[in-house]
């Protein structure tokens, strides 16, 4: 089987649409018969990343590539960037604004959840240019 690829534009202004890309990927993986534990990990990691693109950046593009043995995700935004990635990865660290906190975000648990649910994760970020998050979940 060759790799399958899906691309999603994430609207950075619309909270009500955040989660659409993740939900769509979940549906596709289900239809393809991917094991449910793999689907759950991909869903959680992708949703947290997608939400971060909306609440901390101004949207961007998500690429998902499924190979027989792995699912690779690349989330690229042109937002404000992350000045200190190590600090951002710490559980509880958040710069979320009050209006998104009132919607239930801002616990500072998104990046730790992404780390926990993926086998590989790497963040590249330049302040003022944007952030790209690379995540991989193995299909064993």
């Amino acid at each position, binding site marked *: 089987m060759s790799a399958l690829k899906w691309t999603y534009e994430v609207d950075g202004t619309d909270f*009500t649409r*955040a989660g659409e890309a993740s939900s769509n990927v979940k549906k596709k993986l289900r239809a393809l018969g991917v094991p449910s534990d793999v689907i759950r990990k991909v869903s959680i990691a992708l949703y947290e990343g997608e939400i971060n693109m909306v609440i901390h950046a101004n949207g961007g593009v998500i690429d998902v590539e499924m190979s027989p043995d792995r699912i690779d995700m690349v989330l690229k935004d042109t937002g404000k960037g992350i000045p200190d990635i190590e600090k951002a990865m710490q559980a509880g660290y958040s710069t979320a604004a009050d209006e998104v906190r009132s919607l239930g975000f801002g616990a500072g648990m998104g990046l730790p*959840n992404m780390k926990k649910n993926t086998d590989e994760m790497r963040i590249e970020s330049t302040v003022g240019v944007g952030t790209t998050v690379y995540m991989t979940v193995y299909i064993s």
Partner: protein
Amino acid sequence: MTPIEFAQKYNLTVVTPGDCSREIKGAYCGDLLSWVMGRAKEDDAFVTVMANINTIAVAVLADVACVILCEGAHFDEMSIARAQQQEVCILETDAPSFTVALWLGRELGL
């Protein structure tokens, strides 16, 4: 016990029935969505006061058995439409989260 059976027994309102075949196998209470994402398990009842469309997204992606909205909170129409479309079961009650957790604990034998 299914979410519908739970609703009947404890007098909760069924806002959307979801996929009626699901069983409640555990429970998680929380209003901070990333905590819920990280900790709730598949087939848990997700007990919360956070009523917006992101709650529905979390319910779908964390694959919980139902959302139980407490303290008399309500979802807006868009959230309800999304829940219907994605087959998420929503229950509502005036009771606080703690009371709902006690009911769930009783039914789950905890």
